[in-house]
Every structure is written in structure tokens, then in C-alpha cells.
């Protein structure tokens, strides 16, 4: 005897279950359990031809299945929102607020930054997109150096450019007063070098973005002009293979 759904399954009584929308109707009827289904109807007024409807009275679903005999009947599950592609409903999950970059690296991002820097300094086999061979061995660095020197000479033509006279030059070049003088000279130098196509040519040969090269050269020039300018003069350059 299969009196519960579990017993139905255990005792191999599955064939006795009615296959359809309500498989447990016999069980429900026996124990008086109401059917768990929600209905919603547009109209509560039945067509006069549907007095013998088989559905609940307000649904007007006729047994004959003719037109207008139950067409105004629909069912939906209220627990699921209806899909509207034209005006999608706002997401229920709150969107995370954008964190400022400095705040992120002050807290949880510090470890990631440390890891990336350590990796960047010791990457023996860089991933795809990273620089595998030093850029300056692929490209004749002296060409870039000469190009920068030429631009520098053009800027300083008729005016001596040195760390001591930078303020005067930067004023002449129209740089903003808040920018340091070495930065101003470096920015002017890089702007003129970019206009001459120096970085574009190097970017094509090395695969490094033009903007990255220009920014790094600006920073290095600024640093050389301000702090370590005198120190660089004492270094010689070893002839590079392939340079």
C-alpha cells in the first residue's frame, strides 16, 4: 500500500502516479491538502456561453475550448518578476561603490601592489604582453638619446639651460608656476620630441606604447635634471650587443 509520496517511490508505485501537472492529486485528495498553485485572472465575469466551464468559475475555461472561452485566463507565479526587456527592472543586488585608487592601495590593495612590484623586478619569464627583451637592445638607444639631445639643444638655443637657470627657461616656455622647473623643462622636451615623431618610431620598433615611452622619458629627464643629473655624467655606457 502506498499512502505517502515516499512510499510511492520506495515500493515501486510510480506507475500509479498520475503523469501530468498534478502528480500527487490522489495523495492530496486522501489527506485533504489543498493544491499549492497561485492563479490570477483578468476578468471575473464569464462569457455567457461558458456556464459549463471546467476551470474555477472566474477563469471561464470552457471544456469546448472555443474562442473567447477561456482566452482571458492566464496564470503566473507571483514570486518571479515578469521580464520586461525594454525597461529591465533594477538589480536587487546593491552595486559596490567605486573605491578611490589611493584608498584601495592604502588598505587591501597594498599586498597586491607589493606582489606586483616584486614580480616586476624579478620576472624571469614575463607573461604575454610583458617585455621579454630589453627594449633598448632592440632599438638603438643612442638614437633616442641623440634625438632628445637635439631637441634639448633646440630649446636651449640662445639661452643656457642648466639646473640653475631652469626657472628662467620654464617661465619663458610658458609652463605653469606650480610645476617644478625640472618637470617643466622635461615636459617641454618630451612634447617637442613627440611632435618630431621620435617616440612613435621607437614604439613601432619596441612594441611599447608611445605614451608609456614618453612618460618614462619625461620622468627620467626630470629626475636627471633635478637630482641625479650630475651623477649621470660619471657613467660610461657599455656597448650593447645588438644596439
Amino acid at each position, binding site marked *: 500500500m502506498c499512502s505517502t509520496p515516499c512510499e510511492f517511490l520506495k515500493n515501486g508505485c510510480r506507475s500509479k502516479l498520475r503523469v501530468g501537472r498534478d502528480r500527487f492529486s490522489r495523495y492530496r485528495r486522501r489527506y485533504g491538502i489543498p493544491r499549492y498553485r497561485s492563479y490570477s485572472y483578468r476578468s471575473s465575469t464569464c462569457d455567457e456561453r461558458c456556464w459549463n466551464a471546467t476551470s474555477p468559475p472566474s477563469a471561464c475555461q470552457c471544456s469546448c475550448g472555443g474562442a473567447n472561452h477561456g482566452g482571458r485566463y492566464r496564470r503566473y507565479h507571483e514570486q518571479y518578476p515578469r521580464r520586461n526587456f525594454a525597461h529591465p527592472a533594477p538589480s536587487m543586488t546593491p552595486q559596490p561603490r567605486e573605491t578611490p585608487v589611493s584608498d584601495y592601495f592604502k588598505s587591501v590593495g597594498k599586498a597586491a601592489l607589493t606582489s606586483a612590484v616584486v614580480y616586476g623586478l624579478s620576472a624571469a619569464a614575463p607573461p604575454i604582453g610583458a617585455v621579454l627583451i630589453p627594449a633598448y637592445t632592440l632599438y638603438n638607444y643612442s638614437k633616442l638619446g641623440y634625438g632628445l639631445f637635439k631637441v634639448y639643444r633646440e630649446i636651449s638655443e640662445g639661452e643656457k639651460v642648466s639646473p640653475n637657470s631652469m626657472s628662467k627657461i620654464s617661465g619663458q616656455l610658458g609652463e605653469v608656476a606650480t610645476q617644478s622647473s625640472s618637470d617643466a623643462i622635461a615636459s617641454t622636451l618630451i612634447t617637442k620630441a613627440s611632435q618630431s615623431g621620435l617616440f612613435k618610431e621607437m614604439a613601432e620598433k619596441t612594441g611599447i606604447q608611445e605614451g608609456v615611452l614618453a612618460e618614462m622619458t619625461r620622468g*627620467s629627464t626630470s*629626475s636627471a635634471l633635478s637630482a641625479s643629473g650630475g651623477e649621470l655624467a660619471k657613467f660610461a655606457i657599455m656597448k650593447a650587443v645588438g644596439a
Partner: protein
Amino acid sequence: MEQKQFDIISIIASRKAEFYINVRNKLLETLPSNVDKKKARTQLRRVIADLDNRLFISEEEKASNMIKPGLSIAQLKLDTKAILDQIIKGMTET
């Protein structure tokens, strides 16, 4: 400034570029969606560009007064702590 100094500047700039690309690729993988990647990238680029040139000259090069252009960043064995401190300082500034 002489041309030789600009040659050295171009070598250091290339080293910075190599270092920046390696760090950027690694860092962007770990950034969460609520952090503006473009801003982080721009800030990182500026911070690395403004690092002191001396940080990108190895101790060996300083001792011999000879810049070796053929060495990669990994081969240079640079001062990790000094570079890291400067980068963290630059990245956490508002």
C-alpha cells in the same frame, strides 16, 4: 647636459618602461571591479616615471661606473625595498 647623459636617460627610461609593463600586467589582474583600472594604470605610470633614476642603476653599475644596456630588469638586481617604498608612497597619495 651632454648627449651621453641623454643616452643614459633613454636607457633608464627603457628600464622604467619594462618595469612598468611587468607591474601593470600583474597588478591589473588582481584589481577588483570597484577600482578604476584606468586611474590606477595612469597613477602607476606617473609614479614609476617619477622614480629617481638612481634606483634603476644597479649596485654593480654604480661600482664600476658603467651602464650595461643589455641587462633586463631581473638581471639588474635592483633595490626592491627602496623602489617598493617609493611606489607605495606614490600610489597612496591622494
